[in-house]
């Protein structure tokens, strides 16, 4: 400490540092952030490993544009459609925010599916990352339910009737189906309450669940470390070295000068002695 203190510090800087230290001593946030940012990850990570973060960024964008839309949207059957019209045609940049929210939903589905694909083809769901996959799969399902519940809010014919069909489908599920459908509809029929129920599910229930599960997902990812791509140079070298060591061990076990006839055909055929010909 003393050796780096080579002169009087600006009191503002001192106060700032003291405040940081105060918080860090009590929360460990500085240490934690430092660990998170500067922890080692495998040297070679693929561009495909950016898709999870991209999904998260899109989720953030949906949250922000969604908050702005909520400032103008009216979840009431008599004014919902009109308020969407106002957002689209009158509110400054309203068409852009609504467009971003709409395209963002599709983009998020695409990116989450691509992310799933990369995790699948990299085998990154294998030990010890099984539970990371499970939290991710639940996130995918929640993302799709966001699309389903948000579709109704525009309150236009196409969305309304598609949602009627979707809820009817839910109701046809055995045993609990009718109860879930009643909860979704806020009663036995589609009515004024249905819209506000979908609104609250779309902007409170599912986003809350998603934030929680993104938290769990991230906790597991940073605890376990991001998987190394299975074809990384380091991994290939290890694989080659292991293969060589295995061969060498096999050779050593055999008495000098004699070769056993392998039970199955060897991968590389032994050179054949042509005896009869000479």
């Amino acid at each position, binding site marked *: 400490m003393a050796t780096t203190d080579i002169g009087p510090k600006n009191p503002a800087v001192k106060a700032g540092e003291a405040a940081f230290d105060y918080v860090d001593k009590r929360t460990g946030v500085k240490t934690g952030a430092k660990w*998170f*940012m500067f922890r080692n*990850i*495998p040297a070679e*990570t693929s*561009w495909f490993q*950016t898709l999870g973060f*991209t999904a998260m*960024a899109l989720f953030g964008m949906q949250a922000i544009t969604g908050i702005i839309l909520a400032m103008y949207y009216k979840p009431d*059957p008599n004014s919902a*459609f*009109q308020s*969407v*019209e106002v957002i*689209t045609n009158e509110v400054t940049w309203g*068409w852009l925010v*609504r*467009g*971003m929210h709409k*395209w*963002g*939903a*599709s983009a998020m589905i695409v990116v989450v599916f691509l992310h799933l694909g990369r995790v*699948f*083809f*990299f*085998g*990154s*769901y*294998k*030990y*010890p990352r*099984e539970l990371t996959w*499970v939290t991710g*799969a639940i996130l995918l399902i929640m993302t*799709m339910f966001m*699309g*389903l519940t948000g*579709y109704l809010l*525009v309150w*236009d*014919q*196409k969305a309304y*009737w*598609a949602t*009627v*069909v*979707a809820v*009817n*489908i839910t109701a*046809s*599920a055995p045993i609990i189906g009718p109860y879930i459908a009643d909860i979704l509809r806020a009663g036995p029929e589609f009515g004024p309450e249905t819209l506000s129920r979908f609104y609250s599910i779309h902007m409170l229930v599912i986003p809350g669940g998603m934030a929680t599960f993104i938290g769990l997902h991230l906790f597991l990812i940073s605890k376990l*470390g*991001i*998987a*190394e791509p*299975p*074809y*990384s140079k*380091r991994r290939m070298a290890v694989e080659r070295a292991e293969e060589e060591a295995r061969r060498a061990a096999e050779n050593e076990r055999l008495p000098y000068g004699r070769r056993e006839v392998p039970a199955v055909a060897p991968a590389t055929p032994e050179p054949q002695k042509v005896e009869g010909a000479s």
Partner: protein
Amino acid sequence: MNRGQQEYYKRDYAQAKLEGKPFFPYAVYKDLLIATLAIGLVIGMAIWHRVEIGEPVNPASTDFVPRPEWYFFFLFELLKIFKGQNVFMPVIMATFIVPNILMVLLIATPFIDRGPERRIQKRPIALFTGIAVIAFLAYMTHLGASSNEGVGSEGLPLTGLDEKGQAGADLFLANGCTACHNVAGVGAPGPGPNLTNLGSQGQTPQYWGEFIQDPPGGVMPSFTTFTPQQYDEIGTFLAGLGTTYK
């Protein structure tokens, strides 16, 4: 993976990290770049393809085409495959069984595939499954995207339509029944069953009039806003399909 393979993986991964690089900036810059590109693309699409707004909801008018968002097309198409033609194709396959099997398989993947191999070219089953799922989803989504929407505006190619039958046919077209049902080649091939020969079931017009007020099976929307005369007209129309009107 057995215990030894797990230990091996842990040791190997620790080595990878030891020879690794810090998360910041080596992974962060990639993440930020791709995420920025994605958001830029979304903004671009929002500007390029202005959002539209359709007709306001009118629960009394069922003049609609119930189309979900494109990412539900694959489920929607399932309804067209399993529409209760016979005992082997029950509707519940599309509404409940297949989606739930898919969901359970998705969540359970890491517990089904527990082998230690991570290189895809050495995991033939995973490779095949992955490609099959992608092909299935792509095909079903394509089907959903290219299925015809506003069908039947030209009228139904039926003969023998009397006054009542014609009124029923008009109601049938005006209320979007063709969005889910096919009659004599007009209308979507599903999700609902083909109604061309509905009359051969021998039910009365009253039966069909009541049927559409509360369709069993739950998937089809109820049509509760017709006048008694209209129920009679559409009931007569449905009861005569394939027998009187063909």
